């Protein structure tokens, strides 16, 4: 009797090891393949600009499709169990089979590996895109941003300043080096799928790649005070020529201001970040 029990235990043990081995090999293989596949295209395309906004759109789309599939799977199974398990007699109890120890472990280990491989796959994709977001192309326009309650103040490399309007040439990556003179703010440009907080005492950065002339909303995404929801501005993308012309004009104005020794004022002060419209 005792030996029989031991034999049963040994059988179970073997079964367990087999399950573990198979699932782990499969899961790691899958995860590895997935991550190397995800990392692949990034290296081959290192020479041209990887627009993070495009990358965002495709990764977002992919993740949404994935979670939709998982969600539907779970929901359908749940709905099916609900439907097929309605209580028919008052004294009825559930009749689900009791799990053997081996299958209990299997039901734990197998999902762990499936979830882990999905996680690693997602992480690998996310990391590749992250590098696109954080590696700013060398050929870029760099603008300093100081945020404050409640305006966005930009300073160009040549000293030209604007408020609530970031004017940039089409086709050139734009990098913002950001700080804040009072509370936290977050420079969010929905069209370019990017934001990053600005704060006193630290410099943070973000970049984006405007390609066509046009206007894009900038809005504050970090609670900064009473007028937080009115703290908006615009990114105005001009064609290269128009941008050059605009910049030239600003430069002459700046030079004129400097020679008359007037205090430097923002060359272009847009309306202060809006006020409630109705009263």
């Amino acid at each position, binding site marked *: 009797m005792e030996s029989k029990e031991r034999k049963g235990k040994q059988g179970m043990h073997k079964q367990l090891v087999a399950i573990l081995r198979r699932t782990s090999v499969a899961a790691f293989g899958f995860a590895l393949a997935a991550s190397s596949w995800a990392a692949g295209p990034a290296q081959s395309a290192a020479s041209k600009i990887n627009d993070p906004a495009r*990358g*965002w759109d495709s*990764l*977002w789309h992919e*993740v949404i499709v994935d*979670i939709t599939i998982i*969600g539907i799977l*779970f*929901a359908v199974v*749940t709905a099916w*169990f*609900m439907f097929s*398990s*309605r*209580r028919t007699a008052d*004294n*009825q*109890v*559930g009749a*689900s089979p*009791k*799990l053997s120890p081996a299958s*209990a472990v299997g039901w*734990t280990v197998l*999902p762990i590996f499936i*979830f882990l491989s*999905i*996680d*690693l796959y*997602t*992480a690998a994709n*996310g990391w590749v*895109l*992250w590098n696109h*977001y954080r590696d700013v192309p060398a050929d870029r326009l760099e603008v300093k941003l100081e945020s404050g309650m409640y305006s966005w103040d930009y300073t160009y490399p040549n000293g030209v300043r604007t408020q609530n309007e970031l004017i940039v040439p089409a086709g050139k990556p734009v990098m913002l080096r950001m700080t804040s003179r*009072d*509370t*936290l703010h*977050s420079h*969010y440009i*929905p069209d370019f*799928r*990017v*934001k*990053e*907080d600005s*704060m*006193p*005492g*630290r410099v943070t950065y973000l970049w984006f790649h405007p390609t066509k002339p046009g206007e894009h909303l900038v*809005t504050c*995404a*970090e*609670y900064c*005070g009473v*007028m*937080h*929801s009115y703290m908006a501005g615009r990114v105005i993308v001009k064609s290269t020529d128009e941008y050059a012309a605009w910049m030239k004009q600003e430069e002459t104005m700046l030079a004129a201001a400097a020679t008359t020794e007037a205090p430097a004022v923002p060359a272009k002060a847009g309306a202060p970040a809006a006020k*409630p419209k*109705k009263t």
Partner: protein
Amino acid sequence: MNLKEWIFTTDHKRVGILYLIGSLAAFAVAGIMALLMRAELSTIGPTITANPTNYNVWLYTHGAVMILGFQIPALTGFFANFCIPLMIGAKDVAFPRVNALSVWLFYVGVILALLTFFIPDPPDIMWTGYPPYSTITTGNTAMYSFTVLILGFASIIGGVNFLTTVAYMRAPGITLNKLNIFVWCTLGAFVLQLIFVPVLGTAVSLISMDKYLGTNFFDPAKGGDVLTYQNLFWFYSHPAVYVIFLPFIGVVFEVLSSHARSAVFNYKMVVYGGIGGIVLLAGEVWVHHLYVSGMADWLRIGQMVTTLMISIPVGLMMISLVGTLYKSSIAFTTPMLYALGVVFLFLIGGLTGIPLAVPSLTLAVSDTYYVVGHFHYVMAVAGTFSIFAGIYHWFPKFSGRMYNEFWGKVGFWLTFIGSNVVFWTMMDIGVDGMPRRYYDYAHFPQFESAHQLMTAGAVVLGLGFAIAVLNWIIGAMKGPPAGDNPWGSPSLEWTTVSPPPHGNWPTPPSVAEDWHPYAYKKG
């Protein structure tokens, strides 16, 4: 039954019911705040108030009171108090008087939170209280700090009490592997509270010291650092979502299993893989709240991986919940509907959290309504549904009476439909750019109709909640007698009379060798 007896009670069931009443009152207040916000957002520009500060104060109160005054106390105060001693066959908790102290402190905290409406400059710093704004606002930051400190302290002493109770007061025969899942979940939650609440206490104390006592922990001009606060705050507040999640999923396990008369699927996987996994990972993921805060890149990437790994313990629990339904015998009672509702809401909430674990994706959706929609699904509404499931489930036990099934179901469907309308729409406009904490959305006129839809949905969902609460009040006063074990559950709390007397059982219970809280028997 006089008032004094209730206030000075040390009976764990009465302490629990005091927690229940207080937290439901908090829920009502915070719910009204939600409706005020929705009313304000129903049109572009000022709608019911022309002063953005009013909106910000409502939002502050809504967030802080829902979490600290409603969900945490309802779950770790009411359910833990009422159920744990009964589930483990104990006469009471280990330290009944400490328990009474914790509920008093809770009431002090709630009253302090409600005083928000009667002071001249109420706090307007959101439930997160980030400096520098919280240290320069004219709003009353001290109020926030003290509310958090008192409620946190109340919860910690509850934690010590329950860990001791479960360790030392189990009836003979109840081994660790025969504890109800809810008991395990609550233990996990209290371990997290004990580790992490002190960090929150530090964070909220430091902002008030900066503001009122002239220290400079968070002022970079004087050598401080603003990001430190965010790290401290979320080092607690992420685990705090598991302090909510663990007991609420525990309640769902109890309700689902009882009304399906089916043993929890793969019990040990839930306890050691699910609950254990969450307790282990809880402290390593807080940076996902700081993905756009200017943290070091390597931290954001590192915690992307740990955050995604949360899907493992949570996924195991979902598998178990669904597996419990397999070949079961489901009665679609009101508590069961709420519990099944949690399965679906949590499924949506959990899956929509996956993109939020990926820093590169959050660069667009962080701090938008996508996040607000996601966490209402995963925590706010799923948690509230499970609290409602639990109240309905144990209603016959603690009141001795039966609620009304018809109105129970009406309430459920209204809230279920309303929640999906509101929070699905939130996620939708969030992806398109709607930022959170906006009193006005003048720059996003395209979202006006979506906001109106959400306001309508919120009214429907509020109505559903109100019906449920009325159902309990009327049921507790006039409902028909419920009997000792209306659901036919072997779990120990159903073996005593309803409502249980002081001391719980006339003679202490003992359990048979083959007893298990989920061993359903025909009969």
